[in-house]
């Protein structure tokens, strides 16, 4: 461990020496209070604060210090802290394999404690095991179930004289209705890289995964490529929606924040977003605004429509934690019905573990129904073989929207990322 610490320090210093602020971060910090240290994404601040408060009430003798950071900062800081032995006791871990702080990457390096014996482990749904377990052992506590769909304001949809689309043709027709009323159907903030993936993930859930549910396994095994798959149709559909004027005019110059504001102000009917954005849209639109959610149809056979839905927020316990008992106790609380309910209620999501007593936000009704009917598909990047694919995808979508690349170029760049070291 001493060697690792030295290496991490020296590498950080090299980075600092070379390009200054690029490596600097003062978040997800080191507490030094002697209590349990928890690090979480700043998007989860509201629900996590509530969970910590409830945990403290139940365990008054356990001191908990919580720090938050944006996703990028959290991922980079965690990596440095883990390799230098200064990481928090409990921290956000992304399910699956899609990003630098995802389960399979951290577990492979030996940084996650085995949580298989915790009571929540037995409750994890079969469909979620591929992104929460490695070699049959549970290493993270899944907390929320999140979806990606069209979040819309019911009043604005009424204003354009539309209704929830059930087929691809309905969707295209709805774009026209919105345009005729001087609005766009969907606000799109493709300036923010992670936003770029939401529309085609939503379309791919139907276009790719209805016919090839094991596409990601095939991709990992080298038996499939993006270029020779229905991803080609998915990207065509994405561009078709853009051509039909379904999105914000200058999507590449529009940020996530602006896209949310556009919905709240009625400039756009809705936004294709993760369901954790519902509280923010609601907050900006006002408590009176009634929001709805529908799965983005990508086929004219309504029964084929699927929605991306997966374990979203999840936490792991540091294998080197000096407060292992407290850390596991906290993880178990996150996995308990009480912890899950608080987290989901405050975060506007669904509990990751089955919980019949939970009363969900009405806007989530269609996601719940699709989850019950087995019509959800895990977020694509969670099962892709490496984190470079997602980043290649972000760049490819921006290039497609800028007219700097063809669909063929985009798919090839994703294939190249799939096979790169």
């Amino acid at each position, binding site marked *: 461990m001493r060697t*690792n610490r*030295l*290496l991490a*320090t*020296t*590498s*950080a*210093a*090299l*980075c*600092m*020496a*070379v*390009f*200054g*602020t*690029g*490596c600097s971060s003062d978040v997800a910090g080191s507490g030094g209070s002697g209590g349990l240290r928890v690090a979480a994404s700043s998007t989860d601040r509201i629900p996590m604060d509530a969970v910590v408060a409830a945990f403290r009430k139940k365990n008054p003798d356990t001191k908990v210090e919580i720090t938050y950071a944006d996703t*990028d900062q959290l*991922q*980079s800081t965690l*990596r440095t802290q*883990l*390799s230098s032995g200064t990481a928090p006791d409990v921290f956000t871990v992304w399910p699956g394999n899609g*990003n*630098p702080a995802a389960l399979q*990457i*951290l577990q*492979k*390096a*030996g*940084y996650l404690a085995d949580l298989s014996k915790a009571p929540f482990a037995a409750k994890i749904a079969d469909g979620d095991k591929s992104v929460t377990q490695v070699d049959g052992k549970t290493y993270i506590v899944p907390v929320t179930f999140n979806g990606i769909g069209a979040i819309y304001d019911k009043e604005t949809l009424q204003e354009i004289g539309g209704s929830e689309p059930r087929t691809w043709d309905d969707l295209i027709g709805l774009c026209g209705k919105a345009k005729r009323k001087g609005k766009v159907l969907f606000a799109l903030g*493709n*300036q*923010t*890289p992670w936003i770029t993936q939401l529309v085609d993930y939503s379309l791919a859930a139907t276009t790719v995964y209805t016919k090839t549910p094991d596409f990601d396994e095939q991709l990992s095994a080298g038996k499939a490529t993006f270029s020779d798959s229905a991803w080609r149709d998915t990207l065509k559909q994405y561009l078709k929606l853009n051509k039909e004027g379904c999105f*914000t*005019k*200058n*999507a*590449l*110059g*529009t*940020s996530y924040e*602006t896209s949310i504001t556009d919905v709240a102000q009625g400039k756009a009917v809705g936004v294709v977003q993760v369901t954790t954005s519902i509280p923010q849209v609601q907050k900006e639109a006002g408590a009176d605004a009634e929001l709805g959610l529908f799965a983005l149809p990508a086929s004219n056979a309504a029964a084929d429509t699927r929605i991306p839905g997966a374990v979203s927020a999840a936490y792991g316990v540091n294998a080197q934690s000096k407060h292992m008992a407290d850390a596991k106790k906290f993880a178990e609380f996150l996995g308990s019905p009480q912890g899950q309910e608080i987290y989901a209620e405050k975060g506007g999501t669904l509990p990751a573990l089955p919980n019949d007593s939970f009363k969900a936000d009405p806007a989530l009704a269609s996601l719940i129904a699709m989850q019950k009917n087995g019509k959800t598909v895990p977020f694509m990047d969670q099962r892709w073989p*490496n*984190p*470079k694919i997602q*980043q290649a995808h*972000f*760049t*490819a979508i*921006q*290039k497609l*929207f*800028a007219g*700097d*690349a063809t669909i063929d170029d985009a798919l090839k760049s994703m294939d190249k990322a799939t096979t790169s*070291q």
Partner: protein
Amino acid sequence: MLPALAFFAFTVLVPSVQGGWFAFTDWDGISPVKHFVGLDQFRKLLDDTAARDAVVTTLLAAVAITIVQNTIGLLLALGVNSRIKSRNVLRVFFFAPAVITPVVTAYLWKYLYAPDGALNSLLGAVGLDGWKQDWLGDPDLALWSVVAVVIWQFSGYSMVIFLAGLQSIPGEIYEAAAIDGAGPVRRFWYVVRPMLAPAITINLMLSVIGGLKLFDQVWVMTQGGPGGATDTLSTVIYKQAFQFNQYAYSTAIAVILTVFVIVISSVQYRYLSRQERNSA
């Protein structure tokens, strides 16, 4: 002096040299396992179009920042070195952006540059609708929009250095040149410019190095987008290290950037020093 040198060596030099070793390994930045791979990471660079594009972008940005920032800085310095009453207020006004952290100014400009933001609204209000642009969303324009922010922020910084140089020139020399019939341009070229040589050297060195390391403003405003159009060497280093799990490769690019900075600034320094000696 010695304690400071020892501290600097301990915290910067030694770790930097030790850290450079990662460029010769296959470390992913998190795994306890790493292997020596020789020059493999550097060879990888040759096939990496994103890194090659970033080199071009970085050089373009550095050149533009160096030329425009210093030209504006010099003009501002000449302006506020005059005897007008409000010169002190103007000096503070022009220097003010330089004291704000680049991240804050970048966030501010990100909103000003938005398609429905203040800049386009202002252009519309004065009847220049045709000039409205997608400042950060157009790949042909995004880099220059970011560069403009850097220039806006640090021209005042260059101004202060030029101003210090201008104020060290004795007033009698200006007067003598004026009496000899030299106009403002000739006075600047034959009197002011040679005596400003040290300030020019410092400003050009600082802006070239700053331009080559450009990161904060790009990261906040575009994260290298759209589609990599504003990726600089620094953003590529960050992405490789923290988004792609390619820590060793990232370090290799960082080493290349360091070499870039050393070579370019050394050549520039030698040239400018010669100019200074010739002017003396």
